[in-house]
């Protein structure tokens, strides 16, 4: 006879809610890398062109956002110390985003600024509204909200700001609803997403998961609140400076705020790493920790753009800045965290009530370590080659970089498929 468990046991989200997001993200990563290889000449032209926009949105929405949607539905109970409020809203989020994202990408690819882009952007906004309701209802049903919950709430609000502003920009292509043309607002739209959504979310989730996976008791809510305030101040100040069209020097204030926040977060991770109980850190955690350092790279590029380069060189460096964020920091953290979270979700599904009956495979045995290492190596080669190719304006090196990134994406899909298709082994 069993009795109900007493105590604050974490409720796990149903795997059926989470897995479609991971699968969709893997396919999007592959598609984005195919597009990158087919259109490497984007490195020689202005960043406002159909192919760059298509690839950027495939990476930001199809890859980054979809995997964060999946992971956050799984981790929301851990972050808000409650349970996911609605599986139905999660399914609706997936359905609308899954249809809207390819329509939007296709709209950019063929540069149909009319109904195709409008339909894609509208569907994505509906998906984000469902996600927003779910995050809010889950967070505010919980008796208390810790600092991590506020990160996820704020990040979700910034995500909605990003997609809603994106919707306005799309309609502004055909109807004059904003004072200036849509291109003038691209940097605000991009930073709403990159800083407000991705950076806040990654720090909010990472600050809880990294100590948890390292089995480290380190925690410092005061520092996490300071980081939270710095990032939000940085983003709000940037929007104000940009809207008022102030001198470039004002932007340094916003950049320094973000830089201090990232350094504080890196230091937070370092301290958690230092007092960890688990001494043997696995490769996935190493990848995630390295990606924290990769956050600094785009800031360095941004300072170069503003302080050193004359205006006619800026197109190339803006592209480099975006590449370092989407294909660098965001991709690296996803590559690491996918193989930390996905095997657990599938393991929980397959072995949830079987682990007492004998030795089961460990979650890390659900994917191939060999393929993982190869993927990381090829990804790093591709990432570095692509950057070198952009800097030296060498199409051959850019092509080699893009090809290597595509191979890394293929290996990622193979290895995640291995996890998805895992069948229970006889115990």
């Amino acid at each position, binding site marked *: *006879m*069993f*009795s109900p*468990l*007493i*105590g*604050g*046991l*974490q*409720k*796990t989200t149903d795997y059926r809610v989470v897995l479609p997001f991971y699968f969709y993200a893997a396919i999007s990563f592959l598609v984005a890398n195919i597009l990158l290889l087919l259109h490497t000449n984007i490195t020689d032209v202005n960043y406002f062109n159909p192919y760059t926009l298509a690839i950027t949105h495939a990476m930001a929405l199809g890859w980054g956002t979809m995997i964060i949607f999946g992971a956050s539905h*799984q*981790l929301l*109970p*851990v972050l808000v*110390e409650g349970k996911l409020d609605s599986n139905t809203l999660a399914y609706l989020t997936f359905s609308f985003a899954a249809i809207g994202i390819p329509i939007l990408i296709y709209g950019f690819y063929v540069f149909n600024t009319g109904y195709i882009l409008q339909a894609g952007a509208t569907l994505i906004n509906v998906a984000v509204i469902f996600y927003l309701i779910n995050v809010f209802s889950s967070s505010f049903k919980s008796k208390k909200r810790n600092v991590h919950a506020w990160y996820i709430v704020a990040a979700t609000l910034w995500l909605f700001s990003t997609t809603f502003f994106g919707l306005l920009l799309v309609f502004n292509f055909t109807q004059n609803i904003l004072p200036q043309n849509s291109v003038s607002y691209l940097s605000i739209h991009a930073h709403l997403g990159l800083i407000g959504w991705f950076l806040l979310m990654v720090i909010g989730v990472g600050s*809880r998961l990294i100590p*948890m*996976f390292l*089995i480290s*008791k380190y925690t410092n809510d005061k520092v996490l609140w300071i980081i939270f305030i710095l990032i939000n101040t940085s983003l709000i100040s940037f929007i104000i400076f940009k809207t008022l069209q102030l001198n470039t020097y004002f932007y340094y204030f916003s950049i320094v705020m973000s830089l201090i926040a990232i350094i504080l977060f890196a230091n937070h991770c370092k301290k958690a790493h230092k007092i960890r*109980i*688990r*001494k*043997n850190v696995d490769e996935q955690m190493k990848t995630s920790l390295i990606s924290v350092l990769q956050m600094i790279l785009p800031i360095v590029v941004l300072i170069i753009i503003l302080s050193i380069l004359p205006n006619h060189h800026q197109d190339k460096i803006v592209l480099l800045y975006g590449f370092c964020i989407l294909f660098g920091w965001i991709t690296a953290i996803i590559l690491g965290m996918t193989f930390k979270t996905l095997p*657990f979700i599938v*393991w*929980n599904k397959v*072995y*949830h*009530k079987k*682990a*007492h*009956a*004998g*030795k*089961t495979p*460990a*979650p*890390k045995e659900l994917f191939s370590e060999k393929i993982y290492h190869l993927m990381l190596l090829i990804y790093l080669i591709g990432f570095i080659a692509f950057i070198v190719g952009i800097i030296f304006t060498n199409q051959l090196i850019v092509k080699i970089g893009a090809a290597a990134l595509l191979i890394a994406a293929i290996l990622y899909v193979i290895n995640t498929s291995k996890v998805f298709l895992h069948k229970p082994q006889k115990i």
Partner: protein
Amino acid sequence: MSVNNIITNDTERCNFALIGLYEVDDPEVGLNVVDLGLIYQLDFDSEEKNLDAQITLTTQFCPMGESITSNITQALSNAFPDWKINVNLTFDPPWDFSKISPEGREFLGH
């Protein structure tokens, strides 16, 4: 009385329970729940056939907590099939490094 740092009122039955509990791993760490120090107390009431277990997790927010606790319950139920099993999760005192056995520490690289 205690067996492997587990407080108990019946060392013989506790040792028998441990056979099953050694088979239950924390899937993230890859170490069994006994060496990890997640089992705080096992109280046996042979007259009422009642087993009260006090257990913990490495962190209150462990996403694998549901799986670990249900597997501990199942392992105890397998060891004592006609007993009532009460598994109580506690975070007082919170789990820390001192709860890990020497074998567990070696496994974790210490």
